[in-house]
Every structure is written in C-alpha cells, then in structure tokens.
C-alpha cells in the first residue's frame, strides 16, 4: 500500500491520533501505522492508505492535520533522499506536463531563502516539463526537513519528499474563533477544541447530537457545521436567550446554521423531559459540564431537603400559585462534579443509540478529585482520553462509545483499567513545563501559588488559570528587573 506522510499541528498533541482515528472511522478509510513510530514530540507520522483519493478523505474536516503528502522518499540526508526518490522513476511520468511547484517545508529549523532554489533544482531529475505555477499549481511537491523540537539542534535529522495530497481544515478554527462570535459566555469552549470534539463524536449528516449543558451553544454550531442536526438544553435559560441581539439564535444566524440547530430548551438534565425510546434517541452527546465551585453546575432542588416544598406554594402578594407566574424560577442547589459525571454517563447509556458517542470534558489533578471516581458502564467503551494540561491542572476530553444495548437495569460500575492513561500516547506530565517555570520557589511560596491557582480555577476555570499564569509571569518579570 502507498505510504503517506501526515504532518500534524504541533499542539493539542494528545488529541491528534484520536482525531485521526475518528476521521478514518467517519470516512471509512482503512489505514495502518506503527504506533511506535508516533511521538507527541514530532508532527510527522507515516501511514499506509490504499490510495491518495482515500487519504484526501481524511482531510475533509481534519482540525489537527496540516497536510498529507504522498511519500516518495524518506532519508537522513538530502543526498540519501534523492537516491530514494530515484528508486521509483515510474511515479514521475504522470506529472510530466501538469503545472506544478516545489515547496520547501521545515519543522524546528529554517532553510534560508537563497538556499531553497538550488535545493529544488537538485530534484530536476524528475523531468517535470509543465508550467511552474506558484499560485495555483495542479500539483505541489514538498521537500521537508525535520529538525525536531530541540531548539539547540541546528541540523535536520530527517528528510522527506512527496506529492502534496492536500491540507486539513485548520481555517475552520478561524471561522469559529470565539473572538469573532457575536454571543459567547465566560466558559465558551475555544473553536479548535469544539471542532475536534465534533470529530470525536463522529458528527455528520443525518445525525442527531445533544448537548445537555449547552451554555452559549458552541457545540451546537461546530457539530452542525459538519452536517449533524443539533439540540441543546440548559438549566439556565438566560444563557440560551442571551442579551438583546446576542443569543444562541444569533450565533446560528452568524454561521448560517439555522436549519441544523434544531432547538435549545430550558431544563435540568437530571429531570429530563426527553421521551425515552428503545434503541436511544441521540447519535451523540457532546458537552462541557460546568464544573467548579462558584460557577459550577446546578440542579433543581434545595440544599436542605427539609425545606423542599412538596406541595405548590402561594406567591407572596399575588394570590396565585408561585410556580404558575411567568417569572418563576425554581430553586437550585449545587450539583457535585462526581454526580454530574455519573449522571451524564447514565444518561448516555439510556439515550444514545448503539454506536453513538459521548464526548465530554473532565477536569483532573485537582486536590478534590481522583480519576478513580470516574464512572464506567458495561455498555460504554472508552475510545480516547486526551489531556489538555494547564500545569498543576488539566482537563481531559473523554470519548466513549455505546457498544451494547442497555438492559434497562444495569447501573454504573467501578472503573476498569487505568482511565488516567491516554490510550493513544504516553501521558506527558507537566507538558507545558508549568511546574519548572512557575514553581521553582520555596515550599511556602509553592503552597501559596498552588492555593491561588486553585482559587483561580474555581473562580473561572481554565481561562482564569491562564490569566493567573500571565499575571504571575508579569510579577516575576518585575521582580527580576527590580534585582
């Protein structure tokens, strides 16, 4: 089978293989690769796919793939590469007369502009006679030099040559950029991750996708973009209605997705009005539950069960039943994270179709939480567990697939296997070097910072953590300048 070189984006590294696998599943592309070949520290992966046409299918909605190239040679020097490419002259004739260009691509290093033309000229042996077209060539050939991620290395270690199959859809990140979105909230998920989640959920035409903590509706948009019909709910109706002209509705209009975003409803998913059907209603559930203490999840009821009304109450002045007034808002109580996750999983067991996916975020490495609390269910199989690290904190994107019908009785079980380890790559602790950069202090300082960090997280989630880290860096800079 022909070999193809995938160049991934060098970020969200843990999400890259799961996304690739999801894309292959969505497009029904048979693909093989050696997992030992893959490293989170390199953007390159060689895969075998039956044809370039099939390989191109993987690009249709890829967020973390930059390019796929039909591989014509790989070596540890330019000389070696030329020898490799020359082993297969049968590949060249079909491109003899098409317009083309050669591009030099580097990772982790640079090749000076003046050196590029001579380098390209060394590949003149292919004998291409078509017009050189730098803007819209029919074919583009790539010369790739990989220097690796070590900034001290100044010599490339691996060289590739091949014919470009195409680019991924990274421009969608800009299309769904939250900074350009009319309606967002404090916890709106960034565009890139929202799009990746839609891929993990195998969203596509004909599917019905549900977000039970819809907030400002990010996932309704990205899942609908890939063709799914989407529906969401939230206990907080203000989030759905928005303010003035900014609402979920206005976002649908902005992205021209009004026809695919079915509805957003106000209710508590713990008391869900969805009609239960055998075989499940939803093809996927994609959500980011509101965790955290202050801005955390809420469920209907009162903290003190003794105060919970069991009969309708009279409104104070109106002489009518309180709950019938148009402005009635039922009391809510905090919804513990472990309960949120357990309920979400059980909801998925009951309401997903077989083969349907649950894709959700889970914060980890907090002092209040251990991954052992993560519930499992025999009907649900873990597909991927990708960590997005924030140093001391991280959150994990969990992808599960419903693999068996629910018998109507089976509840949640104890965790099986090690959910804390990514299935697809080595777990990189402190990937961003957070600890080294920010916690090279005394134990007292360390504890103080940890506490502040925790408070920041509880106050505003990952965004607040990012802001806190920025502030810390500024403070550190100031201290250094003062010295």
């Amino acid at each position: 089978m022909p070999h193809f070189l995938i160049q991934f984006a060098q970020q969200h590294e843990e999400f890259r293989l799961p996304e690739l696998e999801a894309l292959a599943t969505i497009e029904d592309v048979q693909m093989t690769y050696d997992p030992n070949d893959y490293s989170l520290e390199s953007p390159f992966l060689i895969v075998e796919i039956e044809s370039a046409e099939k390989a191109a299918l993987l690009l249709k909605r890829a967020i973390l793939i930059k390019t796929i190239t039909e591989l014509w040679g790989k070596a540890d020097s330019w000389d070696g590469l030329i020898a490799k490419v020359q082993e297969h002259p049968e590949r060249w004739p079909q491109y003899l007369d098409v317009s083309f260009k050669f591009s030099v691509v580097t990772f982790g290093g640079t090749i000076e502009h003046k050196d590029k033309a001579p380098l390209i000229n060394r590949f003149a042996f292919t004998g291409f006679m078509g017009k050189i077209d730098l803007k819209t060539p029919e074919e583009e050939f790539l010369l790739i030099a990989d220097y690796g991620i070590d900034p001290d290395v100044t010599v490339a270690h691996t060289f590739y040559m091949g014919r470009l199959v195409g680019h991924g859809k990274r421009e969608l990140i800009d299309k769904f950029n939250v900074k350009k979105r009319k309606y967002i909230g404090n916890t709106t998920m960034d565009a890139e991750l929202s799009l990746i989640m839609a891929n993990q959920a195998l969203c596509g035409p004909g599917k019905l996708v549900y977000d039970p903590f819809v907030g400002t509706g990010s996932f309704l948009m990205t899942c609908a973009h890939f063709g799914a019909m989407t529906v969401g709910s939230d206990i907080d109706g203000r989030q759905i209605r928005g303010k003035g002209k900014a609402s979920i509705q206005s976002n649908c209009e902005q992205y021209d997705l009004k026809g695919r975003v079915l509805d957003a409803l106000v209710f508590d998913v713990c008391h869900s009005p969805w009609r239960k059907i055998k075989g499940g209603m939803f093809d996927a559930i994609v959500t980011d539950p509101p965790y955290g203490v202050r801005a955390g999840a809420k469920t209907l009821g009162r903290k003190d069960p003794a105060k919970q009304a069991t009969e309708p109450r009279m409104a104070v002045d109106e002489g009518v039943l309180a709950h019938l007034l148009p402005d009635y808002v039922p009391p809510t109580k905090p919804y513990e994270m472990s309960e949120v996750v357990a309920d979400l999983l059980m909801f998925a067991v009951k309401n997903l179709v077989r083969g349907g996916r649950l894709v959700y975020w889970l914060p980890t490495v907090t002092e209040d939480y251990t991954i052992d609390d993560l519930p499992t269910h025999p009907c649900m199989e873990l597909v991927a567990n990708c960590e997005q690290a924030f140093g001391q904190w991280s959150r994990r994107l969990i992808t599960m697939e419903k693999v068996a019908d629910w018998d109507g009785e089976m509840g949640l079980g104890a965790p099986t296997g090690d959910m804390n380890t990514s299935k697809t790559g080595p777990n990189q602790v402190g990937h961003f070097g957070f600890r080294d950069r920010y916690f090279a202090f005394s134990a007292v300082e360390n504890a103080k910072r940890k506490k502040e960090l925790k408070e920041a997280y509880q106050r505003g989630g990952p965004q607040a953590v990012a802001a806190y880290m920025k502030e810390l860096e500024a403070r550190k800079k100031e201290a250094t300048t003062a010295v």
Partner: protein
Amino acid sequence: MRLITHNMLQCHVKGCNANNFPLELQEVVLEQEEAELNEDFLRNMLGKIEYEALVATCLKLDINDLPAAMPADAAYNDEFLQILHRVILETHIKSGKMVCPNCQHIYAIRDGIPNMLLAEHEV
C-alpha cells in the same frame, strides 16, 4: 421550537409516568421558516418519531398535510419526506403552552424557547 422537538418531549413531573405524551399545544403562534432538506436525518428519525402523536398534534394545529399512517416506503418516498420535512423541521412554535394530558402541568414557550423546568414540588 420545531414540531420535531415537541414530538421528542414528554411530561416529566415526579410521578407523572402515564398518559404524559404528547403534550397538548395550546394558544400557539406558529411560523414557517424554510430549511434545507436533509433526507438522511429524516430517515434517521423515522423510527424515533411517534408518528400517530405527530399527526394528532398537527390536526389540532390545522396542519392536514401528513397522511394518517406513515407510508411503508417512507424512507424513500420523496413526496412524503418533503411533507414531513416541512411539518417537523420548518414549522416553529414561537409562543404558546404545552399542557400535560395527565397532570395538567403547563410548559410555556416564549420566543421559541420552551421552558421545561419543573417547579419545586414537582421534582
């Protein structure tokens, strides 16, 4: 709210477990809005829709386009899919009430958004 969503909802007040579907639409304001036809989605939903309830609900709203029984060839009956599309995906309820036939709970629809929250004594 679209009629397809209405067909997916039932009353969920504590203890209200029978005769709680379909919710009866009252005082509704309807609006038609064109949407792109998505046959794959309609086919997906054929087995999930409660068709009889849908037809009954439509008749009360003076929407008489749907055949009384779902055609046997529904999945590939272009004419039927077109009608179904218009009814369940292009018909929106802008405002009104949904009343549970069993416990009489009223779920209000405002600005096209249904409020399915339960009252304190209903959870």
